């Protein structure tokens, strides 16, 4: 199953399980982004529109503020919407609804509201789409208490986490990395849930911990495999959820290895990597044998030209180099 296929599968399961789940967003009726279709069964079953009907699968106008706010209002009054916002850069148009309504209403009203809604968007970075489509905004939303955020980095994680997100009674933002869309792996067809707030170890190791986020995860794994050939044992940990974060899992790994590299495709300042580094420095100081290093995207905007863009994001070479520098091992020639 591909990553996109996994998203579609999770949505289909959720739609089948509960009539209160609806999908709204631009172009969902025609399955333009490939997540509201029946895949191989398309010929027999049609897309989601045919399967669930126009009441529950709705194309929206291009109106992010009301799409997001109405989904919240609907969630407060009995529905469990999944909202497809297409590109993550478009979420900013609805910032007031995310920050001033969705994140705050349950708290401000003393618990009178629950807001069970999922907002999906994809980060189209590394694909020559230019500055307006390449944002990785999850750090901004991490700073808003009241939201939950997931960044699955594999098809199996995407299916289980998205299903949990829909079943969660809190608002969840899922940021999908487009570079991961074509990724394929064996995924259980049966229903399964991955709880929010639980990370996973992709490679076990003892010399250094590499915590990786979203699109940086497969790069971190590739870096670890390369380092292994040099006799360096790197542990790769993917938190999978940014809020609530599996800090316990990160601490366990760092207290074992004593060294940390955090690979995060977000811009450096106030990245998820920045928060993780601060938490480790604060709570695992006694275990650290070396300073923490972050591998992030520089604090500049994303240029269009293929000659200028790709190397800006964390990749297996830069992640491995960061690991070697902490271990004070020379870089390969």
């Amino acid at each position, binding site marked *: 199953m591909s990553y996109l296929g996994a998203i579609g599968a999770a949505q289909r399961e959720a739609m089948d399980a509960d009539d209160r789940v609806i999908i709204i967003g631009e172009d969902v009726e025609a399955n333009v982004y490939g997540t509201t279709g029946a895949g191989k069964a398309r010929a027999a079953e049609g897309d989601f529109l045919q399967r669930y009907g126009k009441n529950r699968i709705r194309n929206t106008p291009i109106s992010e503020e009301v799409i997001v706010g109405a989904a919240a*209002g609907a969630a407060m009054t*009995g*529905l469990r919407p999944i909202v497809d916002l297409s590109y993550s850069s478009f979420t900013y148009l609805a910032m007031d609804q995310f920050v001033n309504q969705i994140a705050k209403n349950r708290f401000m009203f003393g618990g009178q509201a629950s807001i069970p809604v999922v907002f999906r968007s994809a980060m189209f970075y590394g694909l020559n789409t230019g500055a307006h489509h390449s944002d990785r905004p999850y750090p901004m939303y991490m700073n808003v208490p*009241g939201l939950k955020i997931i960044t699955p980095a594999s098809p199996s994680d995407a299916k289980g986490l998205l299903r949990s997100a829909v079943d969660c009674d809190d608002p969840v933002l899922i940021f999908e990395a487009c570079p991961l869309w074509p990724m394929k792996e064996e995924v259980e067809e049966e229903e399964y849930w991955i709880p929010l707030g639980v990370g996973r170890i992709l490679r076990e190791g003892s010399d250094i911990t590499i915590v990786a986020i979203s699109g940086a995860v497969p790069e971190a794994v590739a870096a670890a495999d390369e380092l292994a050939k040099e006799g360096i044992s790197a542990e790769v940990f993917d938190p999978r959820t940014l809020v609530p974060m599996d800090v316990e899992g990160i601490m366990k790994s760092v207290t074992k290895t004593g060294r940390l590299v955090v690979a995060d495709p977000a811009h450096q300042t106030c990245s998820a990597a920045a928060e993780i580094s601060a938490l480790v420095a604060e709570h695992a100081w006694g275990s650290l044998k070396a300073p923490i290093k972050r591998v992030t995207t520089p604090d500049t905007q994303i240029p269009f030209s293929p000659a200028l863009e790709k190397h800006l994001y964390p990749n297996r070479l830069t992640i491995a180099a960061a690991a070697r520098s902490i271990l004070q091992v020379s870089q390969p020639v």
Partner: protein
Amino acid sequence: MSSQLDKDFLLEAQRRMVRIRLFDERASKMVKRGQIPGTVHTSIGQEAQVVGACMALGDQDYMTGNHRSHGHPIGKGSPLSPLMAELVGKATGVCKGRGGSLHLADFSVGSLGESGIVGSSIPIATGAALSSKVLNNGKVSLAFFGDGAANQGNLYESMNLAGVWKLPVIFLCENNLYALSTPAHTVTSGVIASRAAGFDIPGIRVEDGQDFLNVFNVVKTAVDRARRGEGPSLIEVVTYRFNEHSEGLRLGVDYRDQDEKAQWLAKDPIVLFREYLIKEGIANASELDALYTAVEVEVEEAFEFSQSSPFPDASDPYLNLYTEPFEVYA
């Protein structure tokens, strides 16, 4: 149309208007005495506009509003004590002291939240109408907003979405002619109600928002239309706030014309409705006096409740941040 409304209903209308008046007069005093932290925005003078709309809705229907917040839940039947306790920040407040005047909500009467950000709750009301539509449960939703908010983009996004999906929502503009110190006509191009035509939905301007029945009849027509599945309406009600934008606000300049103010102050909605009820033989003076006194007692009880209730326990700053809370790593 008024002949279809029975005496109990009309007296309840007067009762809710008097409740708003006396509650807000007391809240105003409390601000000036430091008994309410921060400030409040009163609906004094706008009671007919608020109650006329609220009573056109059913008890199951939804409503959202803005910073001029107390009138909305009171108009929809909220009890006064938990509201007043909330203004003072007590644990017994309707929002457990977490919201205050600017963020009142009483889900038990369908009040989904007053927003401190002008216009921000309009999409929420639109969403409540979306859920009614999908669940096919016949409920209607109403969004209160002011003349200032009428220039926010989210109103037009909401009207467009509600129009094209035929959502059962009423967009009600409380046009009290001023957005804080700014006269509405100096920042508004055209007439607010006319903007509905662009979305092919009905737009009605109620010129005299001081008349309860005037407002009620127009909103009821829109509510019935929505409940029949015919979609949203935009209603602009012209009214006036008798007090300052917020209690305790001292602006150096007199931005409202004194003659205009005098004319509006002479149209007190509570006095006008009292005269109507007496003239039509629906109620007599002593019944209405008794109604007024009963509300005075309610407000006094609400005040006592707010003073004697405890403040909330400060030990859990994360209370009700999430429906499914998690431990913060320490």
